[in-house]
């Protein structure tokens, strides 16, 4: 195993065991039998290790679902659902860490340790949306559609918030939550509802619109 993977794995292990990150790079390296030079060749800080921990989870999930046999035939909606269900399935291994990190986090907060997590998710979401745009499943809306990955990210964080509060057997209610919210979201982006809402908002608040543009 290379140093990078060793560091990521040992950091995750430490976080699980102690419920907090290692205090210093020095102590962390000592327990791993690595020099600080080895560490800093891979990571700039302990925070960036944690960012890699969460980011690699999402990156791995996205790679796994998009290599599935049926992926090619899936609509954008089914691709996004497949990702989310793979996420909830995988989250069983991560639940205690997620409770540690996410349960006190507002769904819109974007702390440094989630930087890679957010980036990898948005890269994946952009791919899903591009697929939807190319098949006509998602209507093209010019500059507005640049917001779609951000909207999906907020939805994703809402799913996590729901999952962490879910007390149902095998977290079945989270599955239902995902199914229903994604159906709703894709119904909205498929229809003219967004355009009409936007048009109405523009009509009602011309001054606000002026400031935005």
């Amino acid at each position, binding site marked *: 195993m290379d140093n990078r993977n060793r560091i990521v794995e040992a950091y995750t292990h430490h976080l699980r065991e102690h419920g907090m990150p290692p205090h210093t790079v020095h102590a962390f390296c000592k327990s791993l039998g690595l020099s600080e030079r080895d560490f800093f060749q891979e990571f700039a800080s302990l925070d960036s290790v944690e960012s890699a921990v969460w980011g690699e989870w999402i990156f791995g999930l996205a790679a796994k679902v998009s290599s599935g046999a049926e992926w090619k035939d899936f609509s954008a909606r089914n691709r996004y*659902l*497949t990702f989310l269900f793979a996420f909830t*399935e995988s989250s069983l291994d991560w639940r205690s860490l997620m409770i540690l990190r996410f349960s006190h986090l507002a769904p819109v907060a974007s702390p440094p340790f989630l930087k890679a997590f957010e980036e990898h998710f948005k890269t994946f979401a952009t791919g899903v949306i591009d697929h939807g745009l190319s098949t006509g499943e998602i209507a093209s809306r010019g500059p507005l559609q640049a917001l779609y990955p951000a909207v999906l990210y907020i939805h994703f964080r809402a799913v996590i918030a729901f999952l962490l509060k879910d007390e*149902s*057997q095998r977290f*079945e209610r989270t*599955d*239902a939550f995902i*199914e229903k919210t994604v159906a709703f979201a894709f119904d909205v982006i498929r229809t003219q509802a967004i355009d009409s809402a936007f048009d109405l908002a523009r009509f009602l608040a011309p001054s606000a619109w002026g400031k935005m543009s």
Partner: protein
Amino acid sequence: MAALAGAGARVGMNYLKHYGRQAISGRADADDLQERNASEVFRTFSELKGGPLKLAQMLSIDQSLLPPAYAKQFARAQYSAPPLSYPLVVRTFRREFGKDPREVFDTFEPEAAHAASIGQVHRATRDGRTFAVKIQYPGVAESLRSDLGVVKPIALQILGLRERDVAAYFREVEARLLEETDYEKELASATRLSSACAHLLQIRFPKYHPEFSNHRVITMDWMDGVPFDVFADGPAPQDLRDRIGQALWDFYAHQIHQLHIFHADPHPGNFLVHGDQLCVLDFGCTKSINSDFHAKQFAFLDPALETDPARLAAAMESMAILLPTDTPSQREHLVALCRTSLELLARPFRNGEFDFGDPGFMSAIYELGEENRKNDTLRGMRGQRGSADTIYLNRTFFGLYSLLTRLRARVKTPLPPGLVFE
């Protein structure tokens, strides 16, 4: 929840419009109002799926409780639930089997073949066999209780009932509905009832496959056939109608009188007709009764009760339909009412055979239900009456009579063996 509140508001609006029109014109069309309210309530129930959809179905079959306009709307419920997405089906499989559906089966169709009340059915094959795989909506069991809590006051309001008088009724319905989410129990009931009815030659059951079943998935053999309502409304000859009708009657007679446990969900969606055989598809709702209740209940079939009010009153006391606290005039009223119902509901048993081709029979039952519903003396009476066990038994007979009427079948209707009246 928001959807339900919306329905409440729309029903309220319809009432306002109704009374507004009444105030202007001095009269309004009550049927018209019911029709519009029914479609609002129905729309909401079908949007919600799961528990409320089930309740809608339950109400739709117990049409004696419902004005015809509601019944018509509710009866559509079983055909119009939106499907689960394929990724959710895969997710359910991975959760329950640890594998994708296409690892469990050789082929698995991503689109549902048809909807079931709290799930949907997919067609799959393996080793040359075709299966029907029924998958439950996730979270239904969890949300059912809370949904029922929300639906209950609306239902009570619509039906004009008092909660404490029908508490036992709701408890029984709730218990049966919760049971319907238990696929392991359904598999056990299906296996037991289908082997206990195996000697009935014109009834067929799919073979169930416990190795591909668990508490959210039930796998059975795929059954070919014509949906019951398509058959009944089609051009089938009279002798075939009679034979299918007889098979249906014998199936229920055997379960109720011999086994004392029965399939309590006789609606057209649960049956297929294949040649001259009837296939039974769904054992989600079964009801068991004890022999004491069975004896008391079917003692009402004694023809002498129709002419002897004292014996009828005694039978009614045995079932707690008459309470010791009733005044003499209340007793008289209830006994008279019971005699009218009995004359109608026991009619198929009277001559050893019955022609359900007469549409007047079913509409008389509807009318009786409607009269009882509007009967102020009856609604003014306090207290819980009767046994909660009668709910599903009545529902079963009501469903059976409806199916036979739809078939326009003539069937032989011997009294249950062991019941001899002098």
